[in-house]
């Protein structure tokens, strides 16, 4: 277990250092997120009354689409330079590779949320500075990263990876999307009469199940 945790830590350090050097993923994700927020801002006629109804949907959709750009690139270094084979020879268990990528992708999504929330708040004149709101986005990001990392590890081995990733991933994200948007809606007061606990439980259960299943099947995905 100690060796596994050590491998995860080293792999995350490598991914973050690589991203710091290249800024490939964050730049594209942030540019896409900001542009999308601008487009939604002038495309939707929002009155002060319906802003709260629509905020969770806009924020989450922007995060999901922007996150897909990052997921698409998360395994390219391993695939293009054959690094998967180097890692396979060194890690105690292949799940360490998956878990490190999951955490890196989660960090990217959390970082994205940290930037999207203030930009949205300024552009739409509605404060989203709410720890609970951020917490739900982080929980949603976990589920998104757990499923996305697994699917990205499959699609990176195909020629049509840019197309295949969203096609395979988005249907799997249906429970996360519903749970995040509804929970955030309750928190912002736009969804009345609903219990947030049910949605949060769904989110938490989804996150745990998808993470566990992905850890179990990742080995087969890589070796096939």
């Amino acid at each position, binding site marked *: 277990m100690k060796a596994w945790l*050590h491998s995860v830590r080293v792999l995350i350090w490598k991914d973050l250092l690589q991203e710091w050097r290249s800024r490939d993923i964050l730049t594209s994700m942030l540019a896409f997120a900001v542009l999308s927020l601008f487009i939604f801002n002038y495309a939707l006629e929002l009155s002060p009354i319906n802003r709260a109804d629509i905020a969770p949907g806009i924020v989450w959709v922007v995060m999901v689409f922007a996150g897909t750009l990052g997921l698409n690139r998360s395994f390219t270094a391993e695939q293009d330079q054959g690094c998967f*084979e180097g890692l396979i020879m060194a890690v105690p268990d292949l799940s360490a590779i998956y878990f490190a990528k999951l955490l890196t992708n989660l960090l990217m999504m959390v970082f994205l949320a940290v930037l999207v929330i203030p930009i949205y708040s300024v552009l739409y004149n509605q404060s989203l500075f709410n720890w609970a709101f951020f917490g739900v986005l982080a929980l949603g990001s976990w589920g998104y990263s757990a499923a996305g990392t697994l699917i990205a590890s499959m699609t990176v081995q195909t020629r049509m990876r840019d197309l295949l990733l969203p096609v395979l991933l988005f249907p799997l994200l249906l429970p996360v999307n519903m749970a995040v948007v509804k929970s955030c809606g309750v928190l912002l007061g736009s969804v009345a009469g609903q219990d947030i606990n049910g949605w949060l439980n769904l989110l938490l259960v989804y996150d745990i199940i998808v993470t566990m299943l992905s850890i179990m099947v990742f080995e087969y995905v890589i070796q096939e």
Partner: protein
Amino acid sequence: MTLQARQISKAYGAQRVLDRLDLSVDAGELVCLLGPNGAGKTTLIRTLSGLQKPDSGEVLWGSESEGIGALKLRRSIGLILHQPFLYEHLTGFENLRFYSRLYETGLGDADLRKMLGRVGLGSARPIPVRGYSRGMKQRLTIARALLCDPRILLFDEPYTGLDQQGCGMLNQLVLEESARNKLVLLTTHELSYIRQVATRFDVLHRGKIAASIPNAGISLDSLQEQYSAVIAAGKAARKEQA
């Protein structure tokens, strides 16, 4: 320590690449695997490294109780394949430090710089690997493969991209490792270089080790002659069968 392949077969679809192949390499031996393009050298190296399983037969690393699933065994193999396993946005030193930490070698920065010096990259500028030439990447790949002080060295075409100095450096390194009782198996088409260091040449043809040529001061001409004769005999036998 002995690396053994027993009756291993591997096919890609209808194409049989390895056909009940037997091979044995002892510690301290420096064996060169020769063969024409497509003979299955890379497939054999990948199978011996445990990266892919044979369709039938078995590979034994040392004692029979050791399986490739064991971390200790996997970490005792220094592997070079066609791709360098390097991260392009990291510098050469950072790549080595990453793999060193992943392998838990306990090497410090000074040791890693010494390793870079050993492969002739000691004075290389600290630029990302994407700015390296093909030869520099290959030198770094060799350093990466030797980082974990492996007992088994499996090198597939290690001379690729190296200049004359680089080939000499590689020869020196494999000789040193072999002298330390390491098991070295490599593939190459550079007969002039490998002739200087190999203890034995195994010729892979039609999925089998078709001949084993000991290197008792063999000349380059004689080696090329014997190698060509083995390949020609294989082709003739194939024609007869057809």
